[in-house]
C-alpha cells in the first residue's frame, strides 16, 4: 500500500508542477462554468424575474400598481390567483409573486394590517431577488401614487376619504390616529409638490422625515412572505454550468493521467516502476489512485468555488459527496481505457480527446442536459459524462433523494470498475 501511495503522491506532485495540465484540470472548467453562466443570466440579478401578480383589491390604485409592474423591464409577469401564485413559486416555476390584497388601495397601501397591503411571496434563500423585487414593488407603488395626484387621478380625494375613515375608526388609538393622519397629510403635500415640480422618480424624501419605503406607519404596508421552493429547478445559470463544468474537470484529469501513463512507458520511468519489488497491478493502482484523488480534488474545487463565488445551492452535501466520488471513480476507469488507445502520447491524446468531446457534447458538458431536446437526451444515455453531470446536478439543484441518485451512481461505479479491469489487463498484456 505504501508503494501505491508513493506512486499516487508522485503523480499528484507532477500534476501540480505542470501548469498546462493544471489549467486543463481546474482553470478551464471554471472558466467554462463562469463564461456560460454569465451569458446565461449569471446570478439572476440582471435576469428578467418571472413573477405572478395578484390583484385582489380591484381598485384604480391596485390596477395602476399592477400595470407598473407589468411594464417593468426587470420582470416577466403573469396574473394569477393567490393560491396558484404561491404554488408556482413553491414549485420553482416563478421567482416570486406580488399580491395586492383587499384594501391595498386604501391609504395608498400605507397603514392597514396583515390582511391588507401588498404581499411579496418568495423563497427565503433568494435574498438578492427578494430585495430587488421589494425595490421594484416600492417604486411601482410610488409611481402609481404620483400618477394619482396628477390631473384627474383622484389621489387627494382618496387621502381625504382615508383621513375621514381613520378619524371614525374606533379600533385605532389616538396616538396612532395622530401619526397616520400626519403621514397622510404629509403624503398629500409631498405628492402634490412633487407633481407640480416635474421631478422624475417617485421615491424622494418625504416631508416631516417620513420614509416612503419604511415600515409601520412610515411607509407602505409591504410584507414579504416566505414561500419555500421545492428545489425543482436551477435558480441561476451557474447552477447549470458548474455541474456541467464538472465534466470538463473530470475529462481534464482523465486525459492528463492517460497521457502520463503512455509518456512514462516511452520515457522509461514506467520500466523502473515495473522493476521495483511491487506488482504491475500496484503500479497501475498507484496511477489510478492519483487520478481518482485528482478528480476528487478538481471537482470539489469547482463546486466549492461555484458555491462561494456564484451562490450555487447544494441541496444535499452527502449526495454531492457520493456523486463526486462516483464520478471520479468512473473517470478513473475511463482514464485506464483511454491509456490503451495508443502507444504514443500523441495517439492517446488524439483518440482520447475525440471520444471525450463526443461524450461531452452528448452528455451535458457543452449543452446543459436541461436544455437538450428530447432526442438528444435519449442519445445522452450512452455518455458517461451525462451520469457524472446528472449525479452532481441531482445533489445541487435537482433535489435527488437516494432512490433517484442510486441508479445514476450505479452506472458510474459499474462503468468505472469495467474500465479499470479492462484497462489494467490491456496495459499489463502490453508489457510482455
Amino acid at each position, binding site marked *: 500500500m505504501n508503494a501505491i501511495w508513493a506512486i499516487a503522491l508522485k503523480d499528484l506532485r507532477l500534476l501540480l508542477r505542470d501548469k498546462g495540465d493544471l489549467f486543463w484540470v481546474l482553470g478551464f472548467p471554471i472558466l467554462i462554468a463562469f463564461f456560460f453562466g454569465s451569458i446565461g443570466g449569471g446570478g439572476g440579478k440582471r435576469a428578467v424575474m418571472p413573477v405572478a401578480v395578484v390583484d385582489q383589491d380591484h381598485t384604480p390604485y391596485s390596477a395602476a400598481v399592477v400595470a407598473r409592474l407589468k411594464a417593468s423591464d426587470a420582470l416577466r409577469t403573469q396574473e394569477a390567483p393567490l393560491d396558484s401564485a404561491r404554488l408556482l413559486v413553491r414549485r420553482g416555476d416563478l421567482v416570486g409573486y406580488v399580491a395586492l390584497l383587499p384594501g391595498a388601495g386604501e391609504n395608498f397601501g400605507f397603514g392597514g394590517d396583515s390582511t391588507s397591503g401588498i404581499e411579496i411571496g418568495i423563497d427565503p434563500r433568494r435574498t438578492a431577488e427578494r430585495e430587488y423585487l421589494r425595490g421594484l414593488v416600492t417604486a411601482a407603488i410610488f409611481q402609481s401614487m404620483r400618477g394619482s395626484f396628477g390631473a384627474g387621478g383622484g389621489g387627494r380625494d382618496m387621502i381625504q376619504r382615508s383621513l375621514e375613515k381613520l378619524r371614525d375608526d374606533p379600533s385605532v388609538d389616538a396616538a396612532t390616529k395622530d401619526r397616520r393622519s400626519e403621514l397622510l397629510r404629509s403624503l398629500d403635500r409631498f405628492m402634490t409638490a412633487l407633481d407640480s415640480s416635474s421631478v422624475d422618480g417617485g421615491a424622494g424624501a418625504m416631508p416631516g422625515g417620513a420614509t416612503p419605503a419604511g415600515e409601520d406607519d412610515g411607509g407602505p404596508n409591504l410584507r414579504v412572505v416566505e414561500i419555500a421552493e421545492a428545489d425543482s429547478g436551477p435558480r441561476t445559470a451557474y447552477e447549470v454550468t458548474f455541474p456541467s463544468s464538472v465534466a470538463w474537470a473530470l475529462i481534464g484529469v482523465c486525459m492528463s493521467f492517460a497521457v502520463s501513463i503512455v509518456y512514462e512507458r516511452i520515457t522509461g520511468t514506467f520500466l*523502473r516502476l515495473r522493476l521495483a519489488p511491487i506488482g504491475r497491478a500496484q503500479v497501475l493502482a498507484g496511477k489510478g489512485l492519483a487520478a481518482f484523488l485528482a478528480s476528487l480534488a478538481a471537482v470539489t474545487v469547482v463546486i466549492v468555488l461555484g458555491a462561494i463565488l456564484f451562490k450555487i445551492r447544494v441541496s444535499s452535501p452527502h449526495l454531492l459527496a457520493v456523486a463526486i466520488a462516483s464520478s471520479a471513480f468512473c473517470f478513473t476507469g475511463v482514464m485506464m481505457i483511454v491509456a490503451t488507445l495508443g502507444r504514443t502520447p500523441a495517439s492517446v491524446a488524439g483518440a482520447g480527446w475525440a471520444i471525450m468531446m463526443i461524450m461531452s457534447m452528448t452528455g451535458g458538458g457543452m449543452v446543459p442536459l436541461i436544455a437538450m431536446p428530447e432526442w438528444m437526451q435519449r442519445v445522452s444515455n450512452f455518455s458517461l459524462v451525462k451520469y457524472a453531470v446528472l449525479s452532481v446536478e441531482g445533489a445541487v439543484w435537482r433535489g435527488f433523494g437516494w432512490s433517484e441518485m442510486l441508479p445514476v451512481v450505479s452506472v458510474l461505479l459499474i462503468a468505472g470498475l469495467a474500465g479499470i479491469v479492462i484497462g489494467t489487463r490491456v496495459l499489463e498484456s502490453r508489457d510482455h
Partner: protein
Amino acid sequence: MHAIEVASLRKSYGALTAVDDLSFTVAPGEAFGLLGPNGAGKTTTIGMIVGALSPDAGRVVVDGESDPTRPAIRRRIGVAPQALALYQELTAEENLDFFGSLYGLAGARRAERVRWALDFAGLADRRRDRVGGYSGGMQRRLNLVCGLLHDPPVILLDEPTVGVDPQSRNAIFEAIETLKREGRTILYTTHYMEEAERLCDRVAIMDHGKILAIDRVDALLRAYGGAPTVEIEFADRPASLDVNGGTWDGPRWRVQSERPVEILQQAMGAGAAFQHVSIERATLEDVFLRLTGRRLRD
C-alpha cells in the same frame, strides 16, 4: 552458485528474432560485459533477466531464483536502464526519495541512502534542482544511482554512458569500478569496446541476438584479435628489408607479429631512418571485425 545464469534464452518480436538461444553465466562479484552493436539484443536480454520481458523460451536464474519478478529477487537487483528513467519535473532528491520508497526504504534509512546516492553521483549541490535542467551527463549519473539506492548485490547497467561528455563518462567509470571493488556482480552492456576492456572481467560478443564469443578480454584478443601490428613510416623507403611479410603503403610499412620488438630491431638493421613507429595491440574492435566481418559501429 552463479549470480546470473541465462540458458537457451529466446525472444522474438514478430518475424524478428531479437535474442536467439542465448546462454551465459556470471559469477558472484564478476563484471561481465555484453558487447555488441545497436540491435544486437543486449537490452532485450537485460529485460528478460530482470523480468520486464517474458522469454519465448529458455531460463533465467538470478541468485538461485528462476522468477526474477519475485519482490525478494528484485530487491537484490539494481538496474540502470538505457533510457533515462527519471521524472524531469522532480528534483534529484525527489526522484531518489520516490524510487527509494518503492524499494521499501523508509525514514532515516531512506534519507541516508538518498544522501549516499547524491554524493556517489556528485549531485549533492544540485539535489534540489529539477532534473529537466540537468546536463545529459548529470542525468546519466542520477539514472545510475537510482538503481543503486537499495544497495543491491547484482547490478545491471544497460549502456550507462550513452550520450555523455568525457568528464561524466569518467565519473561513471570510477563509480562502476568502486562498485566492482565492493564485490558486486555487474552485468554491463555497451557498444564501446574500450569500456568493456576497461571495466569487464569477461565479455560476451553479441550480434543478431547470438553470442559469437565469450571469454576473458585477453583471451578473446588472443583468440580472435590476431598478433600485434607494427607500423613504421620510413623517411626513405629502404631498397630491401630483411623481414618476411608485411605490406607497403608508400613509405609506410605494416606487419603483424607476436614478436613486435624483434621486428623493430630487424627494421632498424636496414639502416633507413624512421619518421614514425607504432606497435598496436589488437582490440575488441578487431575481435568483432574478425568474428562478423563488420565494425562495431557500422
